């Protein structure tokens, strides 16, 4: 078990940030979602062993964070959301220092610094001071800082924040590659499509408790098979032919008519209806629930949550 928490409770004075959180993460790439004030930051702090739980416990890679927090931090990588750099140091020197602080021998840290910079695509700029980097480069530097000590698990906090579409694509690509290397990834973000593009699993947290956990594919699968069909040609004749073939056609949205079809050979029927009505199918896609819908449903499902602090 990569990460497990039992009845975790985190308080700051009288404010309860996490209230009885129990979850288990077996590995892979998982998205951590939740509204602001849901307790995600406190959860990350607890995972890193930076705050002591008021009750319950949390184990990362088999280590109790309350008692062996330093070892946990040596094996875990954290990519902060804030624009964090080490002042007055170039990328290589920064990473060597950070690697050393994570317990690496000096020589290994030096080698790893270069390797990690290659991996994130900062090889050309590695001898420049990090304070002079552009936003996209700084973000990649932070990712490198999370990886330099070869962690088994990384936490990425809003990794695509402020990146333009190309930068976002590159970053998500890197995240997928990290997962492919066998490093477990916990991605905390507000951008649901980022999670859809990189993760297999999600955890939804709200008001300090777990609302939902599961594989994205499973959560998105709807009960019946519905398709969005766009046609070049008149809709009316298509509807007639479709009805004749036993398909249900409802009005759709921008991506076309909603057609409900039987599981086997359903699509062939749609094409047949189109051909018979003299239309061409220009787009056919199965309608699955988006992660966004899953997310919002999970927030409402367990009943209205108490208003979280500071939100």
């Amino acid at each position: 078990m990569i990460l497990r928490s039992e009845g975790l409770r985190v308080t700051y004075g009288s404010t309860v940030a996490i209230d009885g959180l129990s979850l288990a993460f077996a590995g892979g790439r998982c998205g951590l979602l939740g509204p602001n004030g849901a307790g995600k930051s406190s959860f990350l702090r607890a995972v890193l062993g930076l705050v002591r739980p008021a009750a319950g416990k949390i184990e990362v890679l088999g280590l109790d964070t309350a008692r062996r927090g330093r070892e946990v931090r040596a094996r875990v990588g954290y990519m902060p959301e804030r624009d964090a750099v080490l002042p007055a140091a170039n990328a290589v020197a920064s990473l060597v220092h950070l690697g050393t602080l994570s317990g690496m021998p000096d020589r290994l840290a030096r080698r790893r610094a270069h390797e990690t910079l290659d991996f994130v695509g900062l090889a050309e700029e590695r001898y420049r001071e990090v304070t002079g980097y552009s936003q996209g480069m700084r973000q990649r530097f932070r990712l490198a800082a999370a990886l330099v000590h070869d962690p088994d698990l990384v936490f990425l906090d809003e990794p695509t924040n402020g990146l333009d579409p190309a930068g976002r694509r590159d970053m998500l690509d890197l995240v997928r590659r990290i997962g492919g290397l066998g490093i477990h990834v916990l991605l905390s973000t507000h951008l649901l499509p980022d999670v859809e593009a990189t993760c297999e699993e999600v955890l939804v947290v709200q008001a300090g408790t777990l609302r939902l956990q599961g594989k994205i594919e499973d959560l998105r699968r709807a009960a019946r098979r519905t398709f969005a069909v766009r046609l070049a040609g008149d809709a009316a004749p298509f509807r007639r032919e479709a009805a004749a073939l036993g398909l249900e056609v409802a009005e759709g949205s921008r991506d076309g008519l909603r057609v409900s079809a039987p599981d086997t050979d359903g699509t062939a029927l749609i094409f047949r209806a189109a051909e018979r009505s003299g239309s061409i199918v220009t787009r056919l896609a199965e309608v699955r629930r988006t992660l966004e819908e899953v997310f919002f449903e999970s927030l409402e499902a367990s009943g209205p949550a108490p208003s979280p602090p500071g939100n």
Partner: protein
Amino acid sequence: MSAPVLEVSGLSRWYGEVIALSDVSLRLGPGVTGLLGPNGAGKSTLLRTVTGLLPPSLGEARLFGEPVRDNPRLFRRVGFCPEADAFWEDLTALEFVRTLARLHGFGAREARERSLRALDRVGLADRARKRIAGLSHGQRQRVKFAQAILHDPDLLLLDEPFNGMDPVMRRQTMDLVRSLGEEGRAVLVSSHILYEVEALTDRFLLLLRGRLRAEGGIEDIRGVLDDIPRRLVVHTPDPRRLAGAAAGKETVLGVRRDGASRVTIETTRADEVLRWLTSAAASGEVRVEEVFAADEDLESLFEMLVR
């Protein structure tokens, strides 16, 4: 009103050697329009020139038919929500918005009423009396938003308005933007998050290296880029059969099998390929689970235009 809300002609702006905008001409009408572009494309410069914060080096900008130059009263009809996070931290949200309302020229009572209404509209009614320093990033964004709409502007300029918002707030704010557009205001939303812009509007402006690269709706732009072949993606349980059948066709330039069930067809005549596909699937010659154009979403279009 016959004059467009915003009209820009031959607008150029440079800083020493660096050119931020180059000969940009465009018009904006009511409804929501997206402003896109990679980093450094000139989006912020355009917004700042339009709001009069920056004088152009060449060309001009006109709001409601009148030149922006030396015309401060035009800005009563413009609301600007900048990207930068700059507040007087010690004020409460209400005080902040009310101060800006007074600066717009409203009397004390009206300023207060409008401020409360604006804060209510952005969903901060219960937090109006909290200090800004104690608000989360997303809430601060909403305060910025409130000050941009309190004077009922006809033109709204939003620079990365959803930054830092969680999905719940994001959805609410997007609904708000949509309704503002439906009310007949002209709303220009500058954002990097393409799927959000796509959800808000069909129309967008794309800036690239300071120049206007494209404007209009996705379909129009796609239609104009005729010389670029279209890519159709087909999901099928038997990709080899489909790939083989497609490869022989005249208008098919290339066929690729990616993965266990996916075939990508590159063609100059997508309509012909689709016609063939429809009858082939209808007759059972091939089995098709999904078909769509690979480049019809904003993300791929963006990539293509920006290359």
